[in-house]
């Protein structure tokens, strides 16, 4: 028999539509979400390169010889950034500024934002100042008493203050970037005469191109470089952002793989219904002489043809989903999506095949064992669909799919544990529950009795329904909870009032006046911390230069370290060993050490450390180790002494505080009052980091919406799976005189109970899965989700009851005979 003709006939039966939709859904999710995630990921990586304003940066204190640069491949994009600090002078004022001179091709990635007037409306540009022009931080205009178009002196060069500079993509990558910015053209550096031999200048050579081209650049320049010159890529320049992106990528994969899992469940449900509705057909065909091979050929051919159709439709929809998602977040992500690749399409096709093989074929294949005698005895053949083999095939397929899709055995194991827990629990609990219900049903009355009996009668179908609903719900809960944890952690990392300005070099006699100033301006500072600069010279009496074990961490001791003191343990510090200034008197001054610093140098509680501070020696004993959060943007110290120890050494203080962009003009007043204090502005860096978090979060939200859609579809497929028997039974009840009201209440009660049990199981399974996802996959601390245990069962009961009633409303509305004849 012709397969295509058979498919067309089968299509009219209606059951294939659900299977096709489920398969299309699977392909759409994979090719859509995977494609979207892939393109978003590449887009975000591209975006993150804008933090460097390039793909690759060479940071050096000297200008590279032309001979070295001329050897580079011509196709590689190049730009030069020169940064240094210098006084800029206007008619009535002068100010120490951070000068950034850039070549015409700057920035290779990202854009500058400027405004035509100080503190004016932002606009983006990829231009740079022409020679003789300067773009200034808004607050430099009032500080220097300048208007737009006014003249500004930099060394021997007179520049026109042309625009206000609001942001640069790579601000914050250089120490010389701290302080009010003046952006000029690189051609003006030599003419200013400011940069002389021995000047402290930071050169950054920016490169853009393909991975191979960048490797060629590295290979070509490496022989010319000294140890103090280094390469910067995304990973080593922005570790926090790289980490954020890594987590976002993992989450997208997690969401995508759960989407695939949901689609798999939908396919399994649809295939089961399809098979159920073909028991009679197969029996008739067999009675009319069809062999099991012929039956298998026809049905497998049908399903494979359907998979091909689903793949084609899913591809188109997947591409649509990708583009729709990008269209929705275009303003947020701020970049045009990179072109799609074939990989997500291939992924979609393989998904369809795997879904068919593991979810659709097992129930369909078992149709071949339907006995022909079913034409005479309709009770035969039903058991052929209830074998556990298809459950195993489905779960096996699910894991293969997820493993292939995510490439993460940990993730798949996390889901495996969750799924096994939920299946095991479901198996035991649901069957126990049903036998208990049988007893309750005897004692109950009215509607409850009917609903309970209905549940017990269909216990096998209901158990399947409960388990699949619980799985879908669990997936959804995991995604929502993991997303919330992730977002919360990101927000914790960068709360809105994260200090964004640092003040250093505050002299002891300025501490009071600076505190007064904060109070007057109503600014909440992190508190002023005294700071003494010293070197660590001995550990337990051994010269640090001669301890071979710390060779790899020599950098930690080959420089001056900031030392401070405190009576109380700072708020965001946590003791990990020892005691905070123990009462017992000690022979040596006492010091507390940051735990990672201690680990690097082999320091523990009781270790004696020798310091040299301003030429004077100091010996101290370690009494505690502390962990602290460097992300908090508050002053933190590797070494904290007990009060009094450092009193005789020259100290200055440090603090950090949050200042809104609109209040930045206040800084002028501060610096005018305390000209010796150094201000470090971190606001632009924090703002950029926050933008990435916002973009990624927006993408996650959208993917989440898609996954919720999938879960709803599983729910629909689930309810449809048992629709026939419910319609049939309720039509008979109505024939026997049951009122519409009774049927409606009975249906609502039965579905609500199914939802309640499924929701409860899902809550337990999700909690288990989340523990593994949080601790193993997202490197976060585990947390309980008590709300899950309440919201999940109640929410599921409500949703399943209402949607179940909606789908079965035909039996309430249509005449019973009509329903019976149709089934």
């Amino acid at each position, binding site marked *: *028999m012709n397969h295509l003709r058979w498919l067309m*006939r*089968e299509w*009219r*039966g*209606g059951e294939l539509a659900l299977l096709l939709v489920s398969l299309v859904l699977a392909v759409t999710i994979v090719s859509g979400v995977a494609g979207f995630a892939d393109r978003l990921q590449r887009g975000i990586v591209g975006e993150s390169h804008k933090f460097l304003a390039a793909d690759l940066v060479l940071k050096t204190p000297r200008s590279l010889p032309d001979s070295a640069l001329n050897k580079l491949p011509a196709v590689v994009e190049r730009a030069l950034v020169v940064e240094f600090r210098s006084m800029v002078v206007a008619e009535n004022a002068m100010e120490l500024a951070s000068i950034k001179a850039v070549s015409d091709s700057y920035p290779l990635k990202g854009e500058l934002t400027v405004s035509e007037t100080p503190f004016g409306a932002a606009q983006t540009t990829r231009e740079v100042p022409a020679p003789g022009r300067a773009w200034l931080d808004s607050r430099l205009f009032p500080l220097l008493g300048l208007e737009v178009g006014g003249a500004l002196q930099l060394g021997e060069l007179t520049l026109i203050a042309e625009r206000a500079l609001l942001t640069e993509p790579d601000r914050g990558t250089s120490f010389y970037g701290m302080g009010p910015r003046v952006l000029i053209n690189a051609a003006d550096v030599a003419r200013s005469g400011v940069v002389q031999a021995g000047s402290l200048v930071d050169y950054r050579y920016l490169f853009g191109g393909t991975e191979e081209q960048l490797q060629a650049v590295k290979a070509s320049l490496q022989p010319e470089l000294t140890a103090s010159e280094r390469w910067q890529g995304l990973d080593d320049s922005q570790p926090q952002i790289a980490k954020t992106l890594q987590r976002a990528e993992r989450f997208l994969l997690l969401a995508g793989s759960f989407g695939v899992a949901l689609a798999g469940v939908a396919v399994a449900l649809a295939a089961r219904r399809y098979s159920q509705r073909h028991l*009679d*057909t197969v*029996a*008739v*065909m*067999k*009675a*009319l*002489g*069809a*062999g*099991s*091979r*012929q039956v298998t050929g026809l049905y497998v051919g049908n399903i494979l043809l359907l998979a091909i159709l689903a793949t084609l439709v899913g591809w188109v929809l997947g591409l649509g989903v990708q583009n729709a998602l990008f269209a929705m977040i275009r303003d947020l992500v701020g970049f045009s999506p990179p072109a799609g690749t074939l990989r997500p399409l291939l992924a979609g096709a393989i998904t369809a095949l795997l879904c068919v093989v593991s979810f659709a074929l097992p129930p369909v294949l078992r149709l071949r064992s339907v*006995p*022909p*005698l079913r*034409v*005479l*005895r309709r009770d035969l053949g039903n058991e052929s669909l209830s074998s556990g083999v298809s459950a195993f095939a489905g779960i096996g397929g699910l894991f293969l799919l997820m493993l292939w899709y995510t490439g993460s055995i940990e993730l798949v194991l996390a889901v495996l544990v969750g799924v096994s827990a939920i299946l095991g629990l479901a198996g035991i609990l649901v069957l126990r529950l049903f036998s208990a219900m049988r007893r309750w049903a005897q004692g109950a009355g009215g509607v409850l009795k009917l609903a309970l009996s209905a549940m017990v009668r269909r216990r096998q179908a209901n158990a399947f329904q409960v388990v699949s609903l619980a799985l879908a719900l669990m997936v959804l809960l995991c995604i929502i909870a993991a997303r919330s944890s992730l977002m919360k952690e990101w927000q914790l990392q960068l709360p809105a009032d994260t200090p964004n300005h640092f003040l250093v070099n505050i002299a002891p006699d300025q501490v009071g006046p600076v505190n007064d100033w904060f109070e007057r301006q109503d600014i909440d500072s992190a508190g002023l911390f005294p700071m003494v600069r010293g070197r660590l010279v001995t550990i337990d009496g051994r010269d640090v230069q001669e301890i071979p074990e710390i060779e790899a961490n020599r950098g930690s001791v080959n420089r001056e370290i900031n030392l401070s003191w405190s009576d109380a343990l700072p708020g965001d510090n946590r003791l990990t060993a020892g005691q905070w200034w123990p009462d017992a008197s000690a022979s040596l001054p006492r010091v507390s050490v940051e735990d990672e610093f201690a680990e690097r140098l082999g320091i523990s509680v009781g270790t004696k450390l020798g310091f040299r501070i301003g030429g004077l020696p100091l010996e101290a004993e370690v009494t505690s180790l502390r962990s602290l959060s460097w992300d908090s943007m508050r002053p933190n110290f590797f070494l904290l002494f007990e009060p009094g120890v450092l009193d005789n050494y020259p100290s200055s203080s440090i603090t950090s505080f949050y200042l809104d962009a609109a209040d930045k003009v206040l800084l002028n007043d501060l610096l005018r009052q305390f000209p010796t204090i150094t201000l470090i502005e971190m606001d632009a860096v924090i703002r950029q980091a926050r933008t990435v978090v916002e973009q990624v979060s927006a993408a996650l939200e959208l993917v989440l919406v898609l996954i919720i859609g999938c879960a709803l579809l599983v729910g629909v497929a689930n309810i449809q799976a048992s629709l026939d028997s419910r319609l049939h039974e309720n039509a008979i009840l109505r024939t026997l005189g049951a009122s519409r009201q009774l049927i409606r209440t009975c249906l609502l009660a039965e579905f609500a109970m199914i939802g309640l049990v499924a929701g409860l199981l899902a809550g337990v399974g999700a909690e288990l899965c989340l523990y593994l996802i949080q601790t193993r996959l997202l490197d976060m601390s585990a947390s309980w989700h008590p709300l899950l245990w309440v919201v999940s069962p109640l929410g599921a009961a409500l949703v399943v009851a209402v949607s179940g009633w909606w789908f079965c409303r035909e039996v309430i509305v249509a005449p019973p005979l009509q329903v019976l*004849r*149709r089934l």
Partner: protein
Amino acid sequence: MIHAENVSKRVQVADSELCILKGTSLEIKRGESVAIIGPSGSGKSTLLGLLAGLDEPTDGDIWLAGEHLNALDEDGRAALRSKLVGFVFQSFQLLPGLTALENVMLPLELRGDRRAAKVARDYLERVGLAHRLDHYPRQLSGGEQQRVALARAFAPQPDILFADEPTGNLDAETGASVNDLLFSLNAQSGTTLVLVTHEPILARRCARRITLSAGEIIEDSGEVVPA
């Protein structure tokens, strides 16, 4: 045409074994029309299923057109049914997703007959449904559905037709007309007819009547009418 020897069928019900047929033997000649009658639960449909090769006996042997059914597996029996057997069922057993024409074409297509559409159309015309070719079963009355089932049963020109309560789902008047059609088609094609019924009128139209009670043949009119 059909030979059954000492055929028994026992099934497991809960913890006990239920014997539905007890050592039944019979011989049906080519062209005979045989009614199997008896009260509900007497084993009529079970015997029909066994003779048609839809089920396997617990004990005993069955030969269909000289083929020993016990020696064939399900696929072998299906192949034999495809060549020799037609069915008419009480519940019509039309496939709901197929039109009347496609339902009749089905057995012909299963055996790879390229003239399936033409033959099916011809038979639907014979049962008076030429104007209903593209109708789905749900759009047809009970009598019309059974007529489609008759067309489907006779279209492949089977040697043996098994009918299980063919008018059991129809009212008396419609049932009578379907019976007329059944016997008329049977007469035209010279098919061996084995019919299960509890309707005495229908049974009397068959040349031979076998009465079953509690799984045993208690009466066999034994009359043999040549084709």
